[in-house]
């Protein structure tokens, strides 16, 4: 049980954000109204995605250093899990945007960047499936992954800040922290981020272990 402490902590955090995220006071803001509570559920998806892509790139580097297949498997499953969170983040953002910005895809630079970043990681899975030889596949996809990561960071955090964006913290818009991420919201937001990062790592861990078993089976 002691090995599972982080899984339990992440679960408790996520369950806590369901209750506190719906019941605690939030700032009353025009346009956003109660939908400001989406911050507790939509934004943690992106935090989880970025952390899991970081895990992927670290393991790709480790693979190139050691040639240990294990790190390649962790990298693949991290990208797969990151894609899941990226898609959920995109769709949840589209629902939110539909009601606050008037359209599900208001050509916001951050939306377009996030879509491109997700496509870039989809290309990683396509690249993998197009190569048959295991070592070649592992090496080439690890190098691709190392290049994809900084591009993803630039797409999500640099380019949207250079132009006008509807997202807080971009294009002259103050970040959430500046005016409405008050201490009450922080009480829910930070546990939500930590909880969802934990859940993402957990899903990745399960997928990695399944893949490892499949791998052993395939080699026999």
């Amino acid at each position, binding site marked *: 049980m002691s090995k599972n402490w982080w899984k339990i902590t992440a679960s408790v955090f996520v369950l806590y954000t369901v209750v506190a995220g*719906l019941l605690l*006071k939030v700032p009353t803001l025009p346009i956003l109204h109660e939908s400001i509570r989406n911050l507790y559920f939509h934004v943690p998806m992106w935090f989880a995605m970025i952390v899991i892509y970081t895990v992927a790139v670290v393991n790709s580097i480790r693979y190139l250093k050691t040639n240990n297949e294990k790190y390649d498997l962790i990298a693949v499953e991290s990208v797969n899990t990151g894609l899941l969170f990226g898609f959920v983040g995109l769709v949840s953002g589209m629902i939110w945007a539909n009601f606050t910005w008037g359209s599900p895809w208001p050509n916001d630079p951050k939306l377009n960047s996030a879509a491109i970043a997700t496509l870039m990681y989809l290309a990683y899975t396509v690249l993998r499936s197009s190569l048959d030889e295991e070592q070649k596949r592992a090496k080439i996809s690890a190098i691709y992954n190392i290049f994809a990561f900084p591009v993803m960071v630039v797409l999500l955090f640099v380019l949207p800040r250079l132009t006008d964006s509807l997202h807080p913290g971009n294009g002259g818009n103050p970040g959430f922290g500046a005016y409405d991420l008050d201490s009450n919201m922080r009480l829910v937001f930070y546990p939500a981020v930590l909880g969802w990062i934990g859940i993402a790592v957990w899903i990745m861990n399960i997928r990695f272990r399944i893949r490892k*078993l499949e791998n052993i089976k395939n080699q026999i």
Partner: protein
Amino acid sequence: MKKIVLFIITLISSITVFAQDNGVDMADKLRSSGKIYVVVAVMLLLFTAFILYLFSIDRRLKKIEKEN
């Protein structure tokens, strides 16, 4: 002691700041009728089921790993 009292006073005053009515529609009716708790209960059930499901997958996987 003074510090603690001051801290509590600022904490309470920060709560009352939100009580002001600035004409923005919030789901106050849902809250006053108590039906928001229905939503909380449903979401809590869904998320608990999701997490228990993850734990059960984890357990099954552990069993298979031991066999190998």
